[in-house]
């Protein structure tokens, strides 16, 4: 047999039907649903009189539109309250296990799957959310899908999909202090651009990737879509198996051994080739930050914001000029020392326990600058419990940060957690699009370390000066 990449292996393992002139019908091992992109899919099922084919491969959670304040208070926003109530009703009616706002396991959809051991190597995973690639950290092929496809998968457990190109992102070398997974992926996107991976699935390889924890790998895979890729994954290894062992939905006993032997066949074969490749030297990276209105507009924290006048293509030049105008930033200067109004630590990119530990390490013994509002939003109720068991909540609160309930929060600003027009945030989330964190708000994307450092000083800060 021809040598194959892990991307091709997982794909081949899930082909249900393949006909000329028709996309491949793929079987889906795990379907995650949430309140925002599913209501119209459930309505579609009702209109056609269809059932959910495999509720046992489907799990629901409420994350996007729910408030992150005290969960005992009602949801004030009537439209959001209705959406959450309808979601719970849909899951109940169709027999789908779900975590409502009061569940002890509630959390962001891309945090709970791995946390429960539901996400496993070699799976196909889908969710009506573009950050589904997060699950690729386990060697799963994980696609973000639209609501029509949510309906297709609910009804048939299958997805029609055309084969993607394979794109190797090889990251070699050792990261320097203060530089982490978020900086690797922001660097990648700044190089290839927000559409650089269109039509592709990334496989992240190399010594720098191998040395990352599972949570760091999730941060990287999470942002594959910001480089345009359909999915992004990392071959499983002992780090993966250690993380998974003993989790509630992970295989047990003889099943675990059987699973391990199958998972060990997944990594890319020697001699397999990719359609595209990029190499990144991790040892040269510095903390990254975005200056513009898409995640590809990123720079090393000591670098200057690029000048539109230096760009030849008129449309590209105008696009950058428009971004700088929206951000109200001068070209040619670094962002260091730029004022910050809000710091958001959270989102499916950076809300796991290791992210909170990193931020807490900076906050410990320090105070939040009085001009800055800081929100720390854990990715799940279990992450929250763990953080509290370690006393991290106390560090955040003592420093003057707001310690919240789990949810997507200010990453997508649907739930009342948002920027005011004109405010600047340093955010550990994944998108700096215009208005993403609140109408007129301006976002600098960065790592939890950079976010925490900027919270303490009140200005964009190179965390290495505080280490």
């Amino acid at each position, binding site marked *: 047999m021809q040598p194959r990449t892990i991307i091709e292996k997982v794909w081949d393992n899930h082909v249900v039907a393949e006909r000329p*002139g028709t996309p491949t019908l793929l079987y889906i091992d795990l379907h995650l649903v949430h309140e925002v992109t599913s209501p119209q899919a459930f309505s579609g099922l009702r209109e056609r009189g269809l059932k959910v084919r495999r509720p046992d*491969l489907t799990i629901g959670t409420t994350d996007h539109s729910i408030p992150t304040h005290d969960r005992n208070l009602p949801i004030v926003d009537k439209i959001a309250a209705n959406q959450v109530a309808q979601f719970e009703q849909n899951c109940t009616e169709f027999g789908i296990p779900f*975590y409502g706002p009061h569940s002890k396991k509630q959390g962001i959809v891309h945090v709970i799957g791995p946390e429960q051991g539901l996400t496993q190597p070699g799976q196909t995973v889908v969710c009506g959310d573009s950050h589904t690639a997060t699950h690729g950290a386990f060697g799963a092929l994980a696609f973000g899908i639209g609501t029509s496809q949510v309906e297709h998968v609910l009804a048939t457990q299958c997805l029609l999909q055309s084969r993607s190109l394979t794109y190797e992102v090889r990251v070699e070398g050792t990261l320097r202090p203060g530089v982490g997974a978020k900086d690797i992926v922001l660097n990648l996107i700044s190089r290839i651009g927000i559409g650089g991976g*269109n039509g592709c699935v990334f496989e992240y390889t190399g010594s720098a990737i191998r040395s990352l924890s599972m949570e760091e790998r999730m941060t990287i895979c999470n942002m594959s879509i910001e480089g345009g890729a359909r999915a992004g994954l990392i071959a499983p290894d002992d780090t993966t198996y250690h993380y998974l062992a003993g989790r509630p939905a992970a295989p047990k006993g003889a099943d675990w051994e059987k699973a391990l032997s199958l998972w060990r066949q997944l990594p890319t074969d020697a001699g397999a080739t990719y359609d595209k490749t990029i190499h990144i030297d991790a040892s040269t990276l510095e903390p990254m930050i975005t200056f513009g209105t898409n995640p590809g507009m990123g720079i090393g924290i000591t670098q200057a914001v690029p000048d539109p006048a230096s760009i030849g293509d008129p*449309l590209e030049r*105008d696009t950058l000029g428009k971004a700088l105008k929206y951000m109200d930033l001068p070209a040619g200067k670094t962002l260091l020392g730029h004022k910050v109004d809000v710091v958001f630590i959270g989102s499916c990119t950076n809300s796991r326990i290791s992210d909170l530990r990193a931020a807490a390490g900076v906050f410990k013994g320090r105070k939040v600058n009085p001009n800055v509002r800081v929100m720390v939003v854990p990715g799940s109720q279990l992450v929250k419990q763990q953080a509290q068991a370690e006393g991290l909540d106390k560090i955040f609160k003592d420093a003057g940060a707001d310690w919240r309930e789990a949810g997507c929060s200010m990453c997508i600003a649907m739930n009342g957690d948002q920027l005011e027009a004109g405010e600047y945030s340093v955010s550990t989330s994944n998108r700096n699009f215009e208005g993403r964190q609140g*109408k*007129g708000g301006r976002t600098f994307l960065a790592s939890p370390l950079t976010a925490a450092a900027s919270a303490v000083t009140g200005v964009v800060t190179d965390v290495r000066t505080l280490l």
Partner: protein
Amino acid sequence: MEKVTTFTGRLAPLPIDNIDTDQIIPARFLKTTSKIGLGDQLFCDWRYDAEGKPKPEFILNKAEGKAAQVLLAGDNFGCGSSREHAPWALTQYGFKAVISTSFADIFKGNSAKNSLLTIVVPADAHKKLFAALAADPAATVTVDLEQQKLTLPDGSSVTFPVDEFAKQCMLNGVDELGYILKQEDAIKAYEGKRTLSVNTNIAA
């Protein structure tokens, strides 16, 4: 799903690269549980001021934007979130097609499922279209899905790529779910040979 037929229509130019789905339809409108009623919120934050009044300089508030059936946008249109609310908002506004030099993958897939054509043209045709509109804002294009042909205002034409299966679905007005449901035997056969499976009930 609506059948796509050949049409001639005016264009609304939006010469910006990487227009993301948060601009097409901001997330705060995603709390709806319906597909309809999103056309008024299309490009909301570019289209209306802080008081909710239309900004006169924005293309959709000009006569030519209001009359347009085709959106002419910069490269990599529809990047970002997977929200199908983006094509819902575009079609409910009245757009039947978007022309660009490239589209984000998820947006392209979502659009086809809502009979919204995503037409990829070469860079020179793209430039020519913007130039034609600068000269005559009422210029029109003709879109022929069957022939995969876009006729430009000067009468010249370019062909555009379309996934064959999506094309047949759009021409016949049938959605993909009907096709997938007919694969029941293959799905059952696949399920019979699956070796590893999670059980989400264990995690609940």
